[in-house]
């Protein structure tokens, strides 16, 4: 038996070594060397000394935060309504279906919608406004990213809301809670695991939406994800690209630890 388990483990172990550990080691190695392969901390010094990288880093996180926040703001009420509908599976399917259309096609649609003579500007024209430049702005990037990520927030929040025992809502109301009090003290905390997985499903990927910044955000390097792509595929400075990547991994780890940390309760002495 022992031998069989080993043979099960081998391909998987090979995968871990080759595609999990080796890439991590390599990217760390690149970040700590110069173009000639000598050890250096120069890349990190460059990152933290120049204002551009720090600003970009803050910018990335600010945008990721905004995207996640708007997704939550739009998705949470939608998920709540969804739990009350008949034929929930059907409506849920309608929410999920757009995620199956390639992301680039949806981004491409917004090139038309946000264009100088596109749908939005035609609409604004009815009120005598515009044309307003929308395409190639940061707003456009945030809007499209939010649009793309909405279903990924609705899903986990919906699942978490569905798991709440309706008797708890009744119990809360029975104890005198208004709708808002029930929401604040019962529904919101109990749906938090869903919100949390929604945040994790959106925040980190939105750091690497370089194709959106290229297509919609006006080809400027405004996020760390775009910077990684820029250094690896355009300027070919892999060492600097790897450095940014390592910093991104580091920040991401912090975010993960922060969002999954258990909150401690205060003890009450009676």
């Amino acid at each position, binding site marked *: 038996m022992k031998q069989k388990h080993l043979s099960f483990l081998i391909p998987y172990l090979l995968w871990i070594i080759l595609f999990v550990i080796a890439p*991590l080691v390599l990217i760390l190695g690149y970040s700590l060397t110069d173009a000639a392969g000598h050890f250096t901390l120069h890349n990190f010094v460059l990152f933290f000394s120049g204002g551009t990288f720090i600003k970009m880093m803050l910018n990335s996180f600010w945008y990721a935060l905004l995207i996640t926040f708007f997704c939550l703001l739009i998705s949470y009420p*939608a998920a709540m309504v969804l739990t*009350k509908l008949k034929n929930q599976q059907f409506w849920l399917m309608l929410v999920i279906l757009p995620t199956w259309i390639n992301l680039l096609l949806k981004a491409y649609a917004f090139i038309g919608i946000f264009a100088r003579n596109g749908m939005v500007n035609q609409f604004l024209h009815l009120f005598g406004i515009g044309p307003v430049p929308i395409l190639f702005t940061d707003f456009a990037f945030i809007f499209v990213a939010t649009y793309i990520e909405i279903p990924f927030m609705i899903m986990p929040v919906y699942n978490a809301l569905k798991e709440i025992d309706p008797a708890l809502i009744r119990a809360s109301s029975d104890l005198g809670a208004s709708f808002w009090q029930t929401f604040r003290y019962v529904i919101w905390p109990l749906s938090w695991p869903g919100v949390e997985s929604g945040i994790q499903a959106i925040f980190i990927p939105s750091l*690497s939406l370089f194709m959106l910044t290229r297509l919609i955000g006006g080809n400027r390097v405004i996020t760390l994800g775009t910077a990684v792509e820029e250094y690896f595929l355009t300027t070919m400075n892999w060492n600097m690209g790897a450095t940014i990547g390592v910093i991104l991994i580091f920040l991401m780890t912090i975010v993960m630890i922060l969002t999954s940390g258990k909150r401690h309760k205060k003890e009450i002495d009676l």
Partner: protein
Amino acid sequence: MRKNSLLGRIYFGLVLVILYLPIFYLVYFSFSSGKSMDHFQHFTWAHYQTLFADHRLLAIFLETLMLALLSSLIATVIGTLGAIAINEMRKPAKQRLYLSLNNILIVSPDVIIGASFLILFTALGFTLGFASVLLSHIAFSVPIVVLMVLPKLKEMDNSLIDAARDLGASGWQVFSKVLIPALTPGIMSGMFMALTYSLDDFAVTFFVTGNGFTTLSVEIYSRARQGIDLEINALSTIIFLFVMLLVGIYYFISKRQGKKAKGVGGLIK
């Protein structure tokens, strides 16, 4: 609550409209003569004719499908074996270690995966092309298969295997006649997820594809960067119809099976 339900429905409807608006926008202009998505000129099939005459794009379409099928199949095999191996581990600490390693690729941003794989392939002296893309797709699909199969293993009744042994089944018979059939739902949804991961991926592929090989995502990206091309709209319509058909079939099958488990929840990536 009841008073709010109409308002709620309107809101939900609005969210759905926004979700579908860009898609229908693409479909609408795929029938417009002209070159932009500004004003509908007049109805035409011209872009569809161009699309079906575009052998390069059709070849890319088929290659993308091939890549997705192949990578998800291989990833499913590796992932299923990995899940079984993890499940057999006695020490919880060891299990946790493997699971954390497993999850690294799931939580990593795509650009990091793409960039680090690019370094890896270069370091190994690998030529970028179909093989590097295939390996990458297998690599990022394996952990999701593990995560889909593992819960099925945990909830599986262990006496099932004991019963099979008791009845005289050999190790291989236990594996093929008991274990795999019991895990089939998990394996299927894992493979399904791997398929969607592969079809949907752009960022990783973009890093490791080189010049020789292109997937649909990469092709759409490079065309979109050059501006509006209504042939892409025609392609979107076809993809949309295709997806509707698939999801529709999935929906009715899952509905006929009696709404068990999570229903269409399994559809999300």
